[in-house]
């Protein structure tokens, strides 16, 4: 038909469950048609798409997403572990013993953060083993991975400790940690650079550490740049978050020394 110059109709029946998948098909059909014409009638369809890629190889969706998931797992693990430990001191009344101990409150809070850090490091180690050896996502920069995973753990363990000190109940710490982690995961560029999304979310997300954590880990694993700021700047910002959160966490314990026990 086509050789005779007649029109051919291509019937496409779409299970249009949701628009993302549906549009993939809608765009894939013209791609197939133009590719077909490029081969069969090269002199008729002269406009072609000539693709140049920024990176030498494509990265699969799962390989990309798993790195973002790792960051949110470090966050959730840190919040839950440190938050529960801190809240438990109030629930059991053992916070009184800590306050009366002949040690500074800074030392107590840093000791609690280090304890939670050690416990959290076990789950993080398992997660890295799974990502690297089971899923097969090999880091391009091992040094960045180890340096920043530690920094990220300190940040979120300190944040968990802060939440636990403030709410003083494990029952509140747990939903708060989950409630905080899941939305933050979605707005921090888990699926692609956050700044490609809408401007409001892109601006808000730059005020919290997961955004920089995901960017740094995408660089450590895939050598990707996903933010306007460089990996070095992201590292400094993350270190700043860690220092500020550790300080606030310790100051909160000091400020709340008279609050006593939860009944």
């Amino acid at each position, binding site marked *: 038909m086509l050789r005779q110059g007649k029109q051919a109709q291509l019937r496409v029946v779409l299970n249009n469950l949701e628009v993302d998948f549906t549009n993939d098909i809608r765009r894939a059909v013209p791609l197939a048609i133009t590719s077909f014409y490029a081969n069969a009638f090269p002199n008729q369809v002269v406009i072609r798409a000539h693709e140049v890629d920024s990176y030498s190889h494509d990265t699969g969706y799962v390989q990309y997403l798993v790195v973002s998931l790792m960051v949110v797992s470090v966050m959730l693990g840190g919040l839950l572990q440190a938050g529960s430990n801190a809240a438990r001191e109030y629930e059991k009344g053992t916070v009184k013993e800590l306050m009366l101990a002949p040690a500074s409150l800074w030392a107590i809070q840093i000791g609690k953060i280090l304890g939670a850090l050690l416990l959290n490091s076990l789950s993080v180690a398992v997660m890295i083993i799974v990502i690297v050896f089971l899923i097969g996502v090999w880091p391009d920069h091992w040094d960045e991975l180890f340096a920043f995973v530690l920094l990220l753990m300190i940040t979120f363990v300190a944040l968990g400790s802060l939440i636990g000190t403030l709410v003083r109940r494990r029952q509140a710490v747990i939903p708060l940690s989950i409630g905080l982690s899941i939305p933050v995961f979605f*707005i921090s560029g888990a699926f692609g650079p956050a700044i490609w999304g809408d401007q409001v979310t892109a601006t808000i997300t730059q005020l919290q550490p997961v955004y920089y954590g995901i960017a740094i880990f995408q660089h450590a694993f895939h050598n990707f740049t996903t933010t306007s700021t460089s990996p070095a700047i992201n590292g400094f910002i993350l270190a700043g978050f860690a220092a500020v959160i550790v300080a606030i966490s310790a100051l909160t314990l000091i400020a709340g020394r008279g609050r006593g026990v939860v009944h």
Partner: protein
Amino acid sequence: MNSLFPILAIVRKDISVWLRQPTSIAATVLPAIAFMVILYFGAQAVGRNPVALVVQDSGPHAQELINILSDSGAFKVTMITIAPQKAEDALRQVKVAAVITIPSNFDAAYNAKKPDPVTIHINNLNLDFTNDLRRSLPAAITKFYADQSAINGNNSPIQIRVKETDLRSQDIDLLRFELVPNLVLLLTTAGIVNAGLATAREWEDSTIKELLLAPISKATIITGKLLSGWITTLLIAAVVLVVGAASGYLRPAGTIYWISTLVIVLLIALASAGLGVAIGAASHRFQRVTAIGIPLSIDLFFLSGGITVAAFLPTWLQTIAHFVPTFYGTHALQMAIFYSSNEGLILDLSVLGATAILAGVLGVLSLRKSMLA
């Protein structure tokens, strides 16, 4: 009738304890609201990658292609420039996902029927974005030729026409589609965690002794615990459904679909609460409840199509998903809310009903065993 008052007293006590902790309520309800807000903003941008256009030809055909690319649902043209370096800088600084260059001889090559490449430089970070961009430029080129056909009669070189037939009456955008598995995630998390914690608390605070010494039957205590977990979960579901319906994102069309939506939510909440009571009674500890309950809820979320359409998962994963009760809950809610359809409703309701009964029985047995021990 004699058991009714003690049951209501247990329900009242559990809900009062829950309500006396504003942080717990806020922490349970706020994620749903936060999700709605985030998804609302996110929906504005999904699937439309920012691109820069480098236009080096001012001819009419080049202008026509620019108009098509600017109007494309696949692109969000955030920069049009004649300076290639400016666009490449934006690409390097991750301000745009791709740079499309229309060369200076575009019109001349087109008129002379010589090869006329339009270059697309893609930041191929991941296949999802990259493939969207890869497909979008040829789609625009096809549209360009189709428009030529409309202008010049049937003279377009592309003579293949696509006739699309959709199985559903409307397209649902990705983030709206994902609201349903998120709702199911909230129901399972709230049910398992709240009911589990309310049950485990009796052991942690040693109040189980008072309950056991009270002049009421064990069946009364068990029923009270299940009912309080169920009601707490439904309170959270009610907030999500009201906000969803008010915003239009989760609004079933018609009474019949409202009824099926509510029945499905009731069943998921009951199954989650039953499971929560079972875990709480078996573990006796807050931390064990959360350690088991939260990963379980998240696993169920992913397996029931949490971040994708379950029907398009790999076959082996689909097989596993068919053994996951929340898969049926998600499917039934999506059919009722988005498509006004009863497709597979009997199967979905049967599986959810059986799961609710099984989880309830599990909760009863676990609580009974712990009370006897």
